[in-house]
């Protein structure tokens, strides 16, 4: 089941392609069409390096939310502005909303398109994230999808699935790992993985990092 809030809709607002994004799409589509490039193989190369793409600013946001209750309140009220406080702004970082994991609730975000993925905050989306099977399965059998990612949730925990769009982009605030009392934000940020911010993983525990 997916929860939806009232989305803003911009009916006359069309998509934009410009700068390098346009150039890359242009050449890539020509090369694929002519058979010089196999899109699957290309995705595979990108996937190998994807975790290193983008500043992963979201980890700093999550760490601050864990340590600073006033900041968490601002995130709840207006996530785009609160994320902007840390200097992270830009087209793909707009219309942000946080969803918080609790002992009772696990949040997971799905999305079908790269245009709605807030990469300045989260880093590059995983290639599978945009695939239709992932999206539909995340909605119909979220426990199974999570277990394939190696995540087992305690019995009885509710899973909420959120559908990200260009008008509403979600950032999951994972639960703070046990044993991190008194940690600085920089240390905490190391525990926040990309997958934990889209809900296909949990934040690392202190002994998972070295």
């Amino acid at each position, binding site marked *: 089941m997916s929860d939806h809030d009232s989305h803003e809709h911009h009916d006359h*607002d*069309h998509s934009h392609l410009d700068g*390098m994004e346009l150039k890359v799409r242009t*050449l890539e589509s*020509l*090369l694929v069409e*002519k058979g010089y490039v*196999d899109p699957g*193989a290309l995705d595979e190369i990108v996937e190998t390096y994807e975790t290193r793409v983008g500043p992963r600013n979201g980890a700093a946001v999550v760490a601050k939310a864990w340590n600073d209750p006033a900041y968490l309140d601002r995130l709840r009220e207006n996530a785009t502005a609160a994320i902007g406080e840390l200097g992270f702004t830009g087209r793909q970082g707009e219309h942000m909303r946080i969803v918080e994991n609790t002992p009772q609730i696990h949040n997971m975000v799905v999305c079908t398109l790269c245009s709605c993925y807030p990469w300045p905050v989260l880093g*590059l989306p995983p290639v599978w994230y945009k695939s239709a099977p992932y999206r539909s399965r995340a909605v119909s059998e979220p426990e199974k999808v999570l277990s394939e990612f190696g995540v087992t949730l305690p019995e009885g925990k509710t899973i909420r699935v959120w559908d990200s769009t260009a008008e509403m982009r979600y950032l999951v605030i994972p639960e703070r790992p046990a044993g991190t009392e008194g940690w600085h934000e920089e240390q905490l940020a190391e525990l926040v993985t990309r997958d934990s911010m889209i809900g296909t993983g949990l934040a690392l525990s202190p002994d998972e990092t070295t």
Partner: protein
Amino acid sequence: MSAREALAQIASIPRDCGEPVFAEPWEARAFALAVHLNERGVFTWSEWAETFGANLKANTLAGEPASYYEVWWQTLEEMGERHGLATALERSHRSDEWQAAAARTPHGKPIEL
């Protein structure tokens, strides 16, 4: 040549803990395209390294230097022409088609030609 070996041969590729880092998603795509075209035998990696190195050098002398991956991209377009993969004219037409596709696609929907 694998991506790993390709990386090893171009020391200037920006890295963090030995892994390449990309400031924006298109940079990863640009990196992958060059590696993939080499894997498919379109050009050798030494030809790539040589052409890219020369462009990088010319760029440092330019009035307003382009970013590392912008130069990488210029090299990719140049290699595409040199090896007859896509001409500047073809790119220009295709670019117009993508812009038209974007203009008729509402926000949040996939842009398709």
